[in-house]
């Protein structure tokens, strides 16, 4: 194995939380509200089903191939040629997705705070920091997130606590005005975020306590769902119908806090949460991509790949969408199918073939034996 380090299942769960949530808190409440209206808080609950499913998929695949990652067992399941094709597809997919994350980060920083700074500087500086973490390996990433994530979650909850006096419960009603359809429709976009949980298949082989992997995976999905429900409830109670018109509802919500005329202008907290959360998110994706690439080419070490891929990621980020409208439109429409087919569709396909293969091998084994 290329990666020598081991992490605990709990560390993995902590790592995965901002890996999903970091980008959710920006655009997704508004996108969900567009479809689900005042029911947008129900959508994450539906969407989390996909999260559980993906973790389960990754776990079952890992059961069959305990020491391999997604890229490695593609070869074993599909055979040399097809395996390489699907592996390459996955690597390109992760290159693109990580590029999108980098772009989302850049667009947000650019759009709200550093309006004059060139994009390449914002994205580039983030990539350098992430490159250091990836270079350090899995254990370093795990420990980094152990320090960062609890602080993030705490700050995040504090924002919502401070907003309580401005919330209007009436905005939530009528619940399910048009039945289940709007909230289900609204769940499609969060589903694509939840499907990102498939990335745990890169970490399962390196868990010190493999038997707890599934449990902690589910806990992680639940924590993401919980925070998403809180986010959506708060934005709906605060803004009502206006939620779907805002670009960054959570950001505006934090700006809206005003306690006794002095505790106000708290948007820098959102910024801190966002930057730290995205750091974890980019690092996790970046690491998986680098590790996957090294495994794809059967290298003895992944470290030489870190910088070149980082460079590529910045370029992919800047290329993937010309502006925020395009990005938001992409994420709100076709991206869901794109993400879901890669992160759920192909793994299901892989699992089916793997199960058939195992059955077939067993049959063959029993016949010969």
């Amino acid at each position, binding site marked *: 194995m290329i990666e020598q380090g081991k992490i605990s299942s709990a560390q993995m769960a902590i790592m995965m939380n901002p890996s999903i949530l970091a980008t959710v808190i920006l655009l997704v409440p508004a996108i969900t509200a567009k479809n689900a209206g005042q029911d947008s808080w129900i959508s994450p609950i539906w969407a989390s089903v996909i999260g559980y499913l993906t973790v389960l998929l990754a776990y079952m695949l890992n059961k069959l191939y305990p020491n391999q990652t997604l890229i490695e067992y593609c070869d074993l399941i599909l055979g040399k040629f097809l395996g390489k094709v699907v592996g390459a597809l996955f690597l390109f997919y992760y290159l693109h997705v990580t590029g999108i994350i980098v772009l989302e980060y850049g667009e947000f920083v650019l759009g709200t705070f550093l309006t004059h700074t060139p994009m390449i500087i914002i994205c580039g500086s983030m990539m350098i920091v992430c490159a250091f973490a990836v270079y350090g390996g899995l254990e370093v990433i795990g420990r980094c997130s152990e320090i960062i994530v609890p602080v993030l979650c705490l700050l995040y909850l504090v924002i919502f606590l401070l907003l309580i006096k401005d919330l209007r419960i009436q905005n939530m009603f009528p619940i399910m005005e048009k039945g289940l359809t709007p909230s289900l429709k609204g769940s499609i976009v969060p589903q694509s975020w939840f499907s990102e949980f498939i990335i745990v298949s890169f970490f399962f082989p390196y868990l010190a306590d493999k038997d707890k992997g599934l449990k902690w995976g589910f806990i992680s999905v639940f924590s993401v769902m919980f925070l998403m429900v809180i986010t959506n409830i708060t934005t709906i109670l605060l803004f009502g*119908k206006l939620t779907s*018109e805002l670009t960054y509802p959570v950001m*505006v919500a934090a700006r809206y806090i005003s306690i006794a005329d002095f505790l106000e202008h708290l948007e820098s907290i959102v910024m801190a949460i966002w930057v730290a959360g995205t750091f974890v998110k980019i690092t996790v994706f970046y690491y998986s991509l680098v590790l996957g690439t090294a495994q794809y080419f059967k290298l003895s070490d992944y470290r030489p790949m870190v910088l070149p891929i980082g460079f590529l990621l910045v370029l992919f980020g800047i290329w993937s969408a010309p502006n925020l409208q395009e990005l938001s439109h992409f994420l709100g429409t076709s991206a869901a199918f794109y993400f879901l087919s890669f992160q759920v569709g192909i793994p299901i396909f892989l699992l089916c073939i793997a199960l058939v293969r195992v059955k077939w091998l067993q049959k063959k084994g029993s016949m010969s034996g």
Partner: protein
Amino acid sequence: MNFEFMIKKALLFSLFIISSFILGGCWDQQEVNDLAFVTAAGIDKSEDGKVELTVLIFIPKGKSSQQGMEGGGGGGAADTLFRSAEGKTIADAMSTLQEKLPRHIFWGHCKVFIFDDDLAKEGLSTHVDFILRHPQLRERSRLFVSEEKAKDILSLIPPLERDISEVLKELSSFRIGMDVTAKDYAQMLIGDSNASALPLIKILPSTPGQEKQTIAYVTGTAIFKNGKMIGDIDDSVTRGVLWLRNEIRLATISVKPNGKNDGFVSMNLLRAKSKIIPLIENGKWKIKLYAVGNSNIVQNTTDLDLSSPEIIKPVEKQLKFEIKKRVNIALWEVQERMNADIFGFAEAFHQKYPKIWAKQKKRWDEIFPSVEVSFDTNIKIQNQGMNSVLSNHPLKGVENK
């Protein structure tokens, strides 16, 4: 080995130093002494269809100069400056304004926006759009409509507060009139009722000789329908509207207790809560206003002995009646005369009867004037004040009457 270690340390050290340059924000660095802090902005309609933007800018001053001012000017000397510029849109005017200011305009502290009523009659949604869109402007900034030109209001020098934005902010936090932030207004604009309301302000007449030393105060509410101002209601009618919107906080209510025509009992409202409950019965749309609260007696000019519970009862009844009267005036003015649903009836019906609402929402303009309002108020008198000597021992003359 040792050499390598040294190099590593030197690299690390230089990294710290380099990062300190970057942390300043390179392209977006903004020094405080290069910024002009806008504390309030006024938007007027100018003759040729353009808008005129007036901003109030805080002048930071050293302590010594401030003391000098106090000695000379007798307080209230201008530590703000105001400038205005015209443009096709606010953003356009803003760039023209920047030409006249040596410092970079910074909107992060702008808490008050004043629109003149000519502009309000044409609709404010496009201007509110600017407030919500611009990254520096805050959704919590309060909006006002003024009877005079916003420019004139901003040029006032308030005697007590730092500047006019502080005055308006404090006044609206009393909740005597409406208190509407940009977010609230945007919510009203896209709400079910198609009507919205903003506090209306006016310049308080000043003492002669000190024309500029006065403030603007909230005199009523400007009513909007379909985004355009269609009329206004005065202070006392606004109180009724606040009851319906559950926004009443401070109120002094004076009633004439039954049968006694020669005096008032005045009460201060301690806490009040109101709720509107919609009901559709046999095709009739009804609203029940449910209000609860506590009040304190603060003055008694009658000869009633308010310490006895039997006498408190009719006073409470009168209090209910008085509140009902206030609300009815508001209903008459706004519901019947203007047909603008600023009370949130539409939302209430939508929330309780989503199916009926979906069919009838196009007819809301026809339904709204016929909505019947009934009352269920329960305002208790909690406290009769610190001292009741005079009314308990009335003067002889009063007793003989």
